[in-house]
Structure formats: C-alpha cells, structure tokens
C-alpha cells in the first residue's frame, strides 16, 4: 500500500473536483485542460454530452435543491468574475511613479509610489532593493499619506527595470511605469535670465 498523489488545481488550489464550488470554475477548467487533460475528460468530458439529466440522476438531493444549488453556484461565479475584472481594470488603470529627487549636490534619492495596488509587499521589496543596490532603502509615507519606497542613490533606471520585471511576472505587462525627474536645475541663474537684459 502506498501513498496517493492528488492533483491540486493551479488556480484555486483545491482538488479539481471541488473547483465548481470556488466560483473560479472557468479558469480552473482551462488550467485543468492544459495540465491534466485526462482528468478533465473524466470530470467534465461526459457531463457536457449527457446533459444535466445524468447529473440529476446521480445526485440524491432532489431536482429542486439541485437546481437551487446550481443557481447559487452560477451567481457566485459571476460575482467572482465581476470582482476580478474590476480589480484587473483598477490595476491596469493605475501606474507606478518613480521619482528621482535631488538632495544635496551630487546626491540623489529615488521615491517609488503606487505599488500598493499590485499586492507587492513594500517592506520586502525595500529590503531587496537595499541589498541589490547596496544602499539605504526604506518605506515611508509621502505627502499624500500613501506609502512609498525611498531608495538612496541614483538607481531610478535599475529600479524601473526591476519593477517592470516584477509586474511582468504577475502578468501585468501593460501597467505603466513612469519615471519623473525632479532634479533641481543645475544652474538656475544662467538659464532663467531673460534675453531682455
């Protein structure tokens, strides 16, 4: 006698039989078809052919209750889908802003704002930045009471590529990462004077 291996759905983490109760059934089905086609066949393959009648026969809780259950599940599913769509739209419409600010003379710092929408752990990211660029890096609140990552040193470009990679991994390639330069004008006295003088 040996241990059994169980397939777990990559979308909802349940055994595939229970996917229908999570409200993510559509995505679960796609995943299962791609990864375990034979399992898909046994679960969903014949159900579509033989229609709901066979399903009812196999169930014991009566037609009425089965119908209600089905309806509830459908409702749950559409609710979940709507929510996911909303969240995705929100994510796509927001953007990450990387600001490069000058401090004194040749010293600069970089502030990254707008990450909280993407479910990125800012504290952890700050830590990785700190070790990656060998600089000081922290999370602090900016003027609008939003959290942002402050990196000391001129690493705006590197940070941008890193964040873009991070977003790509999450499947959010279209999100805009914007870089802004808040450099003090180097020689304000020479550029600003009007030609009138």
């Amino acid at each position, binding site marked *: 006698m*040996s*241990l*059994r291996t*169980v397939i777990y759905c990559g979308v909802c*983490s349940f*055994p595939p039989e*229970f996917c229908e109760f*999570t409200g993510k059934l559509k995505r679960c089905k796609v995943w299962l078809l791609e990864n375990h086609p034979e399992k898909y066949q046994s679960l969903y393959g014949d159900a579509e052919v033989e229609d709901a009648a066979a399903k009812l026969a196999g169930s014991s809780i009566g037609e009425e*209750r*089965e119908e209600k259950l089905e309806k509830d599940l459908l409702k749950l599913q559409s609710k979940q889908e709507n929510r996911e769509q909303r969240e995705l739209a929100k994510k796509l419409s927001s953007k990450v802003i990387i600001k490069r600010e000058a401090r004194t003379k040749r010293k600069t710092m970089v502030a990254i704002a707008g990450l909280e929408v993407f479910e990125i752990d800012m504290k952890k990211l700050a830590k990785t930045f700190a070790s990656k660029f060998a600089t000081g890096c922290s999370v602090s609140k900016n003027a609008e009471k939003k959290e942002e990552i402050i990196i000391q040193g001129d690493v705006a470009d590197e940070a941008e590529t890193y964040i873009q990679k991070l977003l790509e991994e999450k499947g959010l390639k279209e999100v805009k990462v914007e870089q802004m330069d808040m450099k003090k004008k180097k020689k304000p006295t020479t550029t600003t004077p009007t030609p009138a003088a």
Partner: protein
Amino acid sequence: MFRKEDVHSRSNVKSSVQRTLKTKLVSQFPKLEEVIDELVPKKSHVELIKCEDKIQLYAVDGEVCFFQKFDELIPTLKLVHKFPEAFPTVQVDRGAIKFVLSGANIMCPGLTSPGAQLPEAPGLEKDALVIVKAENKESALAVGRLLMSTEDIKSINKGHGVEMIHHLGDPLWTFSVE
C-alpha cells in the same frame, strides 16, 4: 479553528522527538503504520511551527502534515488526500458542500440524507476525529470532530453533528511554509 495564522516561533524537530511523534501517530491511527516511513522519511526535515492559541503545526519537508491543539494530533487535508483509508470517514450530500467549504459545522440532516454516508453500527463515539467526504467526490473536503456519536446522529437527526476543524480553503489550507 484557525482564524488567522500567526506564527510565534518555528524550530527544527530533533530526530528523537520525530520518532516519538511517529509512534504517537501510529497509536492514534493504526492504519498509518504501513506508510509512516513514507510519510515521514527517516532523513526528512521536520519543522515545528508554534502559532497562536497554543496551536502547533508539524511540517515535513515543507508541507504541513499535522497540527496539534492540546494533545491530539490532527492530520491536515494534504495528508488525508494522500492516504484517506487511515481515518474514520463520514460523507455529506451534495447540498452541504457549499456550506462546508465556507467553514460551517455540519448539521445532522446533511449526514443522514440519501447522498450521505455514516459508518455502520456501532459507529463512532462522540468527540471522535473524522474526515468529511462528499457525495460523488473522491477527495475529502474537511476534517472535523463528532459532536454526538454517529448512532445519535442517525436517531436524533437534528442540530450540529460535526464540528469543523479544518476545511478546504481555510487559513491552514492556504498556509505556506516558505
């Protein structure tokens, strides 16, 4: 049972403690004896994770296999799926699945209807640990404790039958040992 996981401390388990753990498991679930070496291999890395409310989790090679509150060891569903034969089982009907997955206690009617199954007489005593299966489904979906004996469930058929301890999708299920 788990609202939110809150890890207080984690430590590696000595191999001697690991041995006692194995004997305890076998004494609690005799059928596990055949596969215990497969479940907890000799060279495996067992970690003890202490959580809030004196709950302790045992993770074998990065997968939570048991947890413990007070004295009794309770298998997690990951383990139950691997070897379901070792544990006493009850089955609920299709209508109950939805509620079980959201963490409700199981009511008696859901255990006695045609789609459900209870062990034959003499059945199980009150307070026994059971795994909960569902109609037409192969895998278990919850672990619970009987609030009345299975014979009582059959005869009284009212009120709470099984107290929910652990179900698919609860914080323990989603808990990951980094």
